[in-house]
């Protein structure tokens, strides 16, 4: 049954062109990130050429203000962007699952309290808050992840809660209660498995927004200055005036395109996953 179900999911996913497209983009980026040392022509931290070099046969996308190869920077940057996206999304989904299940299962006051906290997080204007947080706790790899997770756990929590409200009326949950199973065991063994599929699609969505947030934070100079992400590249490009010269073509456009493509990859995968998990959205085929 289990393998059948996953087989069925795979079939639905692969029958959606959008999902397949998104998934292949993700795979492509994953391969680039994994094999970055093999693919990149230079070490991105080394000064290998003239500063502000134009594209040439050695430096396909030119060099930056200190003479580092931009192409290598971009290839290594995919590692940071993917890692931050995935880790931050993972943390926010785990938080979201815990909050969603506890709120949905216990209901009443607990639910009310947790959902008001969720409301609070959802309505706070998140860019100013993020800038404030990032500036306050200082720029570093893990702080960025922390900031992103603090902001993006709320909407998964709400989606998961609504699923839990549905699951907890199931007969087997009631049966477990009447048997005398502990609440924690019920949540873990009976409710959690039913929530995982939805959490998966929420995870993909959260990853795409985490990548965007990371890029914007880094662009504003609030990212970790010692790691090279796409946002950081854009930050230096902006700081060195590349936006105003013709250098935008090889210094600004490529990282921008990469961010967009990766986010689109996650978004498409997320949409088709959501379609699988929510049969009402499924089209007749």
């Amino acid at each position, binding site marked *: *049954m289990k393998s059948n179900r996953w087989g069925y999911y795979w079939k639905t996913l692969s029958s959606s062109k959008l999902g397949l497209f998104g998934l292949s983009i993700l795979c492509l980026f994953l391969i680039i990130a994994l094999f970055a040392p093999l693919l990149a022509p230079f070490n991105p931290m080394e000064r290998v050429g003239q500063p502000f070099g134009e594209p040439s046969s050695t430096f396909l996308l030119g060099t930056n203000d200190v003479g580092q190869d931009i192409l290598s920077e971009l290839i290594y940057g995919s590692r940071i962007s993917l890692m931050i996206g995935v880790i931050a999304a993972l943390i926010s989904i785990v938080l979201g699952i815990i909050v969603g299940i506890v709120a949905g299962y216990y209901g009443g006051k607990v639910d009310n309290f947790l959902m008001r906290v969720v409301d609070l997080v959802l309505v706070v204007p998140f860019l100013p808050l993020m800038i404030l947080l990032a500036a306050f706790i200082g720029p570093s790899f893990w702080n960025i992840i922390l900031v992103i997770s603090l902001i993006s756990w709320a909407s998964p929590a709400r989606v998961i809660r609504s699923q839990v409200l549905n699951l907890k009326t199931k007969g*087997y949950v*009631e*049966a477990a*209660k*009447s*048997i005398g*199973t502990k609440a924690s065991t019920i949540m873990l063994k*009976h409710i959690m498995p039913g929530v995982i599929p939805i959490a998966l699609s929420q995870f993909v969505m959260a990853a795409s927004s985490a990548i965007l947030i990371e890029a914007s934070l880094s662009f504003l100079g609030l990212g970790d200055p010692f790691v090279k992400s796409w946002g950081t590249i854009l930050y230096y490009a902006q700081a060195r005036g590349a936006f105003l010269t013709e250098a935008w073509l090889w210094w600004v456009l490529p990282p921008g395109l990469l961010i967009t493509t990766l986010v689109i990859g996650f978004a498409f995968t997320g949409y088709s996953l959501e379609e699988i998990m929510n049969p009402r959205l499924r089209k007749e085929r």
Partner: protein
Amino acid sequence: MSLPTLLEVVNLKKTFVRRSGSFLKPKKTDVYAVNNVSFSIEKGEILGIIGESGCGKTTTVRMIMRLMNESNGKILFNGQNLCGLSDEKTTKVRKDMQMIFQDPYDTLNPGMRIVDILMEPLHAHKPNMTKEEKYQKVKETTEAIELIPAEDFLNRFPHQLSGGQRQRIAIARAVILEPSFIAADEPTSMLDVSVRAGILNLLLDLREKMGLTMLFITHDLSTASYMCDRIAVMYQGSIVEIGETQKIIDFPTHPYTKALVSVVKDLNSFIENRETMILDGEVDSTKKTLGCAFVSRCPHQEAVCHNVVPSLEQIDKVQSVACHCFGSSKMGISERSGALV
């Protein structure tokens, strides 16, 4: 009668609040799902609660099983009042009272193997048992519910079993802790007629072997008469008649019971004499009557029926009824209704 009482329910009540009216003029009405229900079950006895949909029988069981809080009343299990007990103590009591649910397709987690489903009660209440002991116990119980050989079934998922087999697993889960009391909420109503008898016989068997006491909920009088030592008939949240099964069937006293019994005994004569047995109409539990709940459908009404709620009164050693007309019921029904209306 000499056996000690295992479960006693005293004046159990459950009200739901219905909100209506506009935002500015909110109106709250109480809807009684269960209204002043009292009964007791002796050790080793099977008490049936019978009634139509929505009469409050499931609500009653859910309150007894502590899946729902009561609005008022007492539930004494082995002399201990279950109402207002802490969660911890309730869990301890649950070891001794288990429930079989109506829908075997819903009560077994579709993602768990049968062996894990049956292990669940052991995990909850026998933390000291080793894994092998638990497995042994699961195997024994599976064989006790006539799924043989047990190994064939234990590694399956619920959807690989038939409805009857699933209900057997649900029964196994309820008896694996060797409880003294089991509440069965319409355990056969979702099953094919062909497998019903098997499930009922299994329950009777288990009762024999384990000395179980049972509360058996059903809407089917023939099932009840097969299973139960005593029957309580419920109508709109109250017990209208309670007594020994044979007595209820042979000499029904309350007009509602009479109608029920005659439907089962002889459907043709019920249809012919429908007018004298019961008035048409759906149950409307929101309409509040001062008097007897059955009055709107009762063919022989008296003035007192509209104004005073009848109380459950003992008519002999084994039977009680809640009806104003009982005192004069030595007369034939048709005669009386002609004289009074």
